[in-house]
C-alpha cells in the first residue's frame, strides 16, 4: 500500500509541488530565522568572548539602575593599583569599555558633517591600555594604536565604508562639542568580520576619560598567576574591591554582557518566526484544500482499493502518507531555501539600516529538527481531515458513476458564528481589558485573531451565497451566459468556494496586519509627542533617544530666530529599590512651552527609558 500511495503521489507530482510551495515558504522562513539569529548570536558571542580571551577575572563598576544613560559606576585608579598588588594577580589592566550601557559612546563625524550612525546601533568610544596587549579585545589591522591626545583608531569597516584612511582627520563628539582627531590606525573586534552598524573609536585611556567625562575605568581585566583558578582569583579580589565594584570570572562577565543582545536576538527571531508561522498556516489551508480535491477526484480509485480488500485504516494511512511525503519534501527544500533566505534577510536588514554583525553562517541541530518537524507536522495535520474523508468513500463508488462521499455534518455556520464570538471576546479583552501589552493580552489577541479567521471560514459558505449573488449581478449583465455560469458555479458549492477563498483571506489578513502594525507604531509615537509637546520644534539625537551633548542646548538658544528654548534632561534613577524616571527641566522656560509663539527644545544628556 505504501508503494501504491507513493506511486500515486508521483503521478500527481505537479499538483503536489504547487501545493507544497506554501509549506516550502513557511519552513524556509523558520529555518532562515534560526540560521540568521544563530549566526548573529555567534557573532556577538565571539565579540564577548574575545573581550576576555586572556582574562581570568573582570572587575567592573556595579550597575545601579537599569537602562541608565550614565552607565555603571566606574572603578578608580586606586582600585587598579590595589588589584595589581594582590597576591595571585599576574597582571591587570583598566579600560573604558562598556558594551551594554551608553557610557562609552563617541560619535564619529562623517565627511558630510553628520554623525556616522545607523538605526540606533552603538557608537563605541573606548579607552584602551595598549601596553598590555593580552587584555586588548581589539586587533590592529593597519597603522598603530593611539599614543597621543589627538589620535584615534577606528574600526576597519567604518573606515572602508566612510572612506577614511590612516593619516586622515576625523571629527569625534562624545559628551562635549566636536573635536578633531588624526586616524593612526584601523582595528577589528577580535575576529568578527563586521560589527553590524556599530562604529568604534579607540583612544588612549586619558583621552577617553576626558572625552567621555568619566573617572577611572569601566572595567579592569585581571590575569591570574599560573596554577591559580579563576574562582580563587575572584574570591581574593572580592576582598580588595569597594562595594561599588563587582568581581566576576571572565566567563560570567561574557554571559552578563550577552544578556542585552540576547533579548534583541530573541525579538528578531520571534518576529521572523511569526511570519514563518503565518506562512505555514496559509500552507496548511492550501494543503487541506488540495488534498480534499484530490480525494474527491480519486473517489473511484479509493473505492476500487476498498473492493480489492483495502481497509479504512489502509486508505487513511495512504492519504496521510501522501501528505507526509509532501510535507517532508517541502520541509527539506524549505530548510535549504532558508539557508539562502538567511543571507537575503541579512542583506535586507542591512539595506534598511539595521546592519547585523556577520560571521560564517551557523547551522545548528535545532534548525534542522524544528524546521523539518514543524513542516511535516503542519502538512500531516492539514491532510488529516481529507484523509478521514477518504476513508468514508464507500466501496460501491467503484461501480457507481458519480457516487458522492457521505459527509459527516461539517463545522457549520453556527459553529463559525460561535468561534467568531469567542474571537471577538478575546480581542475585546486584549484591547479593552486594561492589560494591553501584557503577555496575557497578547496571547488573547493572537488567539482571538486565529479563532476569528477560523470562525469566518466557518460561516463563509453562507456569506459566499449572498456575496456571489451581489457580485454576480454585473457579471451576468456584462458577461452574459458566461457570467451567469460563473455565478452559478460560485454558489453551487459554497463551501468549496469559501475554502478556495480562504487562502486569499489569510493573505489579505496578513497584509492588513503588517500595515496596521506599521501605522500603529507610528501613530502612537506621533500622538504621544503631539499631546505632550506644544513646541514648534524638538531637537533630539539622530536616533531619537540617545544622549547628545548638553552644549547643543545652549547653541540652539543662541541661534537666530529662536525665541525660547527649554532643555530637558532625563535618565533613570533609583528610589529605595524602585527604578524611576528622573527628568530635569528648566522651570522658567518649560512653563512657556504651551505658548505657540515660542519654541521649546528638548535636549541635554537626554536618555529615555527603553522599556
Amino acid at each position: 500500500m505504501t508503494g501504491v500511495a507513493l506511486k500515486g503521489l508521483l503521478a500527481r507530482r505537479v499538483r503536489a509541488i504547487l501545493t507544497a510551495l506554501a509549506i516550502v515558504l513557511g519552513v524556509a522562513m523558520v529555518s532562515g530565522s534560526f540560521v540568521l539569529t544563530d549566526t548573529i548570536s555567534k557573532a556577538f558571542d565571539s565579540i564577548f568572548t574575545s573581550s576576555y580571551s586572556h582574562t581570568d577575572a573582570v572587575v567592573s563598576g556595579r550597575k545601579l539602575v537599569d537602562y541608565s544613560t550614565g552607565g555603571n559606576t566606574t572603578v578608580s585608579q586606586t582600585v587598579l593599583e590595589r588589584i595589581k598588588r594582590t597576591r595571585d594577580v599576574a597582571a591587570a589592566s583598566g579600560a573604558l569599555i562598556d558594551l551594554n550601557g551608553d557610557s562609552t559612546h563617541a560619535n564619529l563625524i562623517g565627511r558630510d558633517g553628520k554623525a556616522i550612525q545607523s538605526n540606533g546601533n552603538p557608537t563605541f568610544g573606548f579607552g584602551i591600555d595598549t601596553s598590555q596587549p593580552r587584555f586588548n579585545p581589539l586587533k590592529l589591522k593597519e597603522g598603530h594604536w593611539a599614543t597621543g591626545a589627538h589620535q584615534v583608531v577606528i574600526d576597519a569597516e567604518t573606515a572602508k565604508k566612510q572612506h577614511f584612511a590612516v593619516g586622515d582627520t576625523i571629527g569625534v563628539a562624545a559628551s562635549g562639542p566636536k573635536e578633531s582627531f588624526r586616524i593612526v590606525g584601523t582595528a577589528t573586534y577580535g575576529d568578527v568580520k563586521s560589527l553590524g552598524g556599530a562604529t568604534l573609536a579607540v583612544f588612549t585611556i586619558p583621552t577617553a576619560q576626558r572625552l567621555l567625562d568619566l573617572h577611572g575605568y569601566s572595567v579592569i581585566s585581571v590575569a591570574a598567576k599560573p596554577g591559580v583558578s579563576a574562582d580563587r582569583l575572584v574570591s581574593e579580589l572580592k576582598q580588595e574591591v569597594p562595594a561599588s565594584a563587582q568581581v566576576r570570572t571572565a566567563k560570567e562577565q561574557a554571559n552578563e554582557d550577552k544578556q542585552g543582545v540576547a533579548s534583541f536576538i530573541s525579538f528578531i527571531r520571534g518576529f521572523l518566526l511569526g511570519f514563518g508561522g503565518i506562512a505555514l498556516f496559509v500552507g496548511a489551508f492550501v494543503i487541506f484544500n488540495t488534498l480534499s480535491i484530490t480525494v474527491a477526484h480519486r473517489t473511484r480509485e479509493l473505492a476500487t482499493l476498498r473492493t480489492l480488500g483495502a481497509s479504512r485504516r489502509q486508505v487513511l494511512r495512504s492519504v496521510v502518507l501522501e501528505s507526509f511525503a509532501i510535507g517532508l519534501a517541502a520541509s527539506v527544500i524549505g530548510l535549504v531555501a532558508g539557508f539562502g533566505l538567511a543571507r537575503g534577510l541579512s542583506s535586507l536588514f542591512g539595506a534598511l539600516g539595521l546592519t547585523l554583525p556577520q560571521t560564517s553562517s551557523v547551522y545548528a541541530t535545532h534548525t534542522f529538527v524544528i524546521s523539518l518537524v514543524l513542516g511535516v507536522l503542519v502538512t500531516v495535520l492539514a491532510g488529516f481531515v481529507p484523509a478521514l474523508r477518504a476513508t468514508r468513500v464507500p466501496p460501491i463508488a467503484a461501480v457507481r458513476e458519480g457516487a458522492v462521499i457521505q459527509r459527516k455534518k461539517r463545522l457549520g455556520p453556527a459553529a463559525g458564528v460561535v468561534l467568531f464570538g469567542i474571537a471577538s471576546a478575546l480581542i475585546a479583552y486584549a484591547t479593552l481589558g486594561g492589560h494591553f501589552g501584557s503577555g496575557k493580552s497578547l496571547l488573547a489577541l493572537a488567539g482571538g485573531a486565529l479563532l476569528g479567521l477560523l470562525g469566518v471560514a466557518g460561516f463563509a459558505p453562507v456569506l459566499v451565497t449572498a456575496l456571489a449573488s451581489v457580485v454576480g449581478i454585473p457579471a451576468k449583465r456584462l458577461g452574459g451566459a458566461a457570467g451567469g455560469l460563473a455565478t452559478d458555479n460560485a454558489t453551487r458549492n459554497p463551501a468549496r468556494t469559501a475554502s478556495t477563498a480562504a487562502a486569499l483571506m489569510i493573505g489579505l489578513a496578513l497584509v492588513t496586519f503588517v500595515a496596521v502594525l506599521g501605522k500603529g507604531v507610528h501613530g502612537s509615537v506621533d500622538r504621544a509627542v503631539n499631546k505632550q509637546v506644544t513646541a514648534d520644534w524638538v531637537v533630539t539625537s539622530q536616533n531619537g533617544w540617545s544622549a547628545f551633548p548638553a552644549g547643543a542646548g545652549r547653541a540652539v538658544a543662541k541661534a537666530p530666530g529662536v525665541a525660547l528654548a527649554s532643555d530637558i534632561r532625563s535618565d533613570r534613577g533609583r528610589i529605595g529599590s524602585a527604578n524611576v524616571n528622573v527628568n530635569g527641566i528648566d522651570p522658567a522656560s518649560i512653563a512657556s512651552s504651551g505658548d505657540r509663539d515660542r519654541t521649546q527644545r528638548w535636549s541635554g544628556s537626554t536618555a529615555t527609558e527603553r522599556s
Partner: protein
Amino acid sequence: MNAAAAALSDERVLLDHSPPAVGAHAIARRYGEGDTAVDALRGVSLEVPRGQLTAVMGPSGSGKSTLMHILAGLDQPTRGSVEIAGIEITKLKDNELTKLRREHIGFVFQFFNLLPMLTAEENLVLPLTIAGRKPEPAWLEQLLESVGLDDRRKHRPSELSGGQQQRVAIARALVSRPTVLFADEPTGNLDSATSAEILELVRRSVDELGQTTVMVTHDAVAATIADRVLFLADGQIAKSLARPSQAEVIDAIQEVAGQ
C-alpha cells in the same frame, strides 16, 4: 489443463458438499422513502453453486445491478440475508467486510478500474499487496500466461488496449483465488471481437480453475457462456435457464420484458 489448475479444480470438487458459494434468501431493496420509494428488489432468493458461471440478465431497471451489489456486500438489502461461503454478510462490520473481500471476493468492473500509476503486474498482484501477502511466483506466471500478458507486464494501463486492461483486471480478480468472482458487465465497454476474447477468458477460468463466477450482463452473447442464466424483471427472478443458446436467451429477454 495444467497440473496446478487440475489440482485446484479437484479441490473444488471435494468441497462440493460445503455451503454454496453465494446464497441469498428473500432479499429486498428499497431506495428512498414514502411516495418516492422505489423497490429495486422484491424478494430474490438464489444459490450460486461452486465451480459454475452464473449470469444475471434483465432490462435496465430490473434490479440486476442492485442484486449483484448486495450479493457482493457493496450494498445492504432492506430485508433478507446473503451468505458467502457460509458467512452471513449483511450484518458484518466494515473491517469484517474488508476481511471477507480479501478472502472470498474478486471483482471485475465494466470500466476495468485499474490503478493508472501501477504497471500491469503491479495491478495484478494488488489484492495480495493490500492483504500483505506475497504472490507465489508460479501462480503469478501462470496467470500472466493464461491472460496473455506475459510481455506486457511492465506496461501501465494507459499503454494497454481496452481488452488488455480487462484481462489484467480479470487476472487481478483471480489472483487471490476468491470463493466467488463478481463480474459487472465485463464486456460492456468493449467491441464485439474483444468481448469474445474476454468471455473466452472468463469461461476458461471457470473450467480450468473452477472459479465460481457471477456475471451481470445485458449482452445475449455473453450470457451464452454461462452454466445458468437468471432473468430479472421488476426486482424478481422471472426465469432461469441452464446453458441456453443465444436464441433461447433472446427469446427469454423478450418474454421477460413483455411481462
